[in-house]
């Protein structure tokens, strides 16, 4: 339902009232922004020198390195989580009880533990505590595995929802022509599930991308950690340039995430044009799975 159903086409009085509200609302918002801007200005955060730091080759290189580190972790975690998701989803739909229980247990456990706790546990050496061998996990791998474990559980549930949404006739027809369960899943159900769930899968990838910033807490030098180092190790007029750094880095994150969500929307729209049966669902955070911004 679009907004317009909620109110009548405005007559002259409503138009006048809306105009007044527009002006008042607009002024309020502008006022709020102006207040914050003034405070920032007052603290010298808009001083040319504060922003001049980004003109230095070294600082730019640092930001690029941080960006590369973030994208590297994101790429590895995303790939790993999708592979694990397929495995977990298959496990959950398996005919063998122990396999089903194992997969369900894994998914339920890691979906309910905060991601930060999973990453931190990996980092401080929970593997050593469980296995007798000594394994040292570097911050990067703690971050990649933590992200992969958590997101694979969410993605597995998304895939399961997708498989359940495939019309039963498809499955029955496949069995009827003599396909085995593996064949049915691999060549009939999974492709359609992935196709219809693509927008949701990509939205969850946006969440994965955002969560790479948890590397900040385990001191992995990704984009946010780089921002912190730049801000805390540079002094301008006796002050630390947190505000300019946060604005620059924040913009980078927002652009990256918007580009990914743009991709999700594009796929959704393309899918709607196609006439091959299953239409992709609306791109959204996979709610039915209890998941997770």
């Amino acid at each position, binding site marked *: 339902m679009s907004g317009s159903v909620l109110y009548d086409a405005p007559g002259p009085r409503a138009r006048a009232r809306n105009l007044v509200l527009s002006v008042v609302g607009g002024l309020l918002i502008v006022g709020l922004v102006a207040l914050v801007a003034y405070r920032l200005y007052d603290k010298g955060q808009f001083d040319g020198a504060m922003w*001049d730091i980004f003109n*230095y080759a070294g600082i730019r290189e*640092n930001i*690029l390195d941080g960006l590369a580190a973030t994208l590297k972790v994101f790429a590895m975690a995303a790939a790993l989580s999708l592979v694990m998701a397929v495995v977990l989803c298959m496990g959950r739909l398996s005919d063998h009880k122990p396999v089903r229980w194992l997969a369900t247990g894994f998914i339920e456990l890691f979906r309910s533990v905060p991601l930060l706790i999973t990453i931190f546990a990996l980092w401080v050496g929970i593997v050593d505590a469980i296995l007798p061998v000594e394994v040292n996990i570097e911050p990067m791998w703690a971050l990649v595995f933590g992200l992969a474990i958590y997101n694979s559980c969410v993605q597995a549930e998304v895939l399961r929802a997708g498989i359940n949404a495939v019309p039963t006739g498809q499955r029955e027809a496949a069995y009827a022509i003599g396909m085995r369960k593996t064949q049915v899943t691999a060549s009939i159900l999974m492709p359609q599930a992935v196709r219809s769930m693509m927008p949701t899968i990509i939205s969850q990838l946006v969440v994965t991308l955002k969560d790479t910033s948890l590397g900040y807490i385990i001191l992995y030098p990704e984009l946010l950690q780089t921002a912190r180092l730049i801000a805390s*190790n540079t002094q301008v007029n006796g002050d*630390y340039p947190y505000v300019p750094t946060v604005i620059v880095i924040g913009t980078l994150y927002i652009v990256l995430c918007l580009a990914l969500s743009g991709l999700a929307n594009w796929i959704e729209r393309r899918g709607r044009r196609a006439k091959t049966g299953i239409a992709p669902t609306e791109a959204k955070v996979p709610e039915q799975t209890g998941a997770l911004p």
Partner: protein
Amino acid sequence: MKLHKTAASAAVILALAATAACGGKEGSAGDKSNDTDEKSLPTYKAAEDVTVDSPVLKNAQKRGKIVIGAKADQPYLGFQDQSTKKYSGFDIEIAKMVAADLGFSAKQITFKTVDSGAREQAVRKGDVDLMIGTYTINDERKKQIDFAGPYYHAGAALLVREDESGIEGPDSVKGKKVCSIVGSTPLQEIKKPKYGGKITELAKYSDCVKQLIDGQVDAVTTDDAILKGYAADNPKKLKVLSKTFTDEPYGVGLKKGDKALQKAVADALKAHEDNGDYEKAYDATLGKSGSKFVEPPTITEK
């Protein structure tokens, strides 16, 4: 349409970033730092044909570089300028002295930032050949790695705002918010009932200092040498209360059981302490933050 816009703006920003990497000003961004007096730094001559029966060192010689773990966020001690990527400070000078006697010139040192919590692991796994970064020698750590030194004697103190009048020393922090990094020893000390401070644990000292300046915490505690660096970087904002309440002898961390390397490092420290390099280096770095020169402690770990 929306996608095209986002994609276009993403492309523009990435293109900007890419070109940015090639251009840009050289040198150090921000205020001109006076942490290190480059001109009065001593120079160290790399020894030739060093033979020490140490696997770690032999490896380093084979690759022609020695990897030394350092801190990056402690002005005057171990600090990395984010625009030039150069490390500077007293610990860095110690590293150069030791490396020179092991046969590596300053150019053959690769510094690697290792944060407090990861130091033992970095040494044990061989990520770094030596660890020189405000590294206190204690028994807990000696179970995992060996030390050479001590080369400096610090002690936990308190950093407060310039206008602070309520806190005069460790005995008057009761009920005040005291910040330090996760797992640091002074923090464990200050929360004991004897002092009764309310503790705040953050990941980095620089986070604590920022919170102190903004009035979010009342004091920061760690080794006085580190605190003096921050106070010198923020004059008229912060001051150090000089009364110390723990002992923190700094040593060079190295792989457990590498006796030959331990001895070589200890000898190098001793030699540079005796020939005056140590004092010169101190005056050009840590000395500038206002700590007076004190004779180096006797080397016990060798």
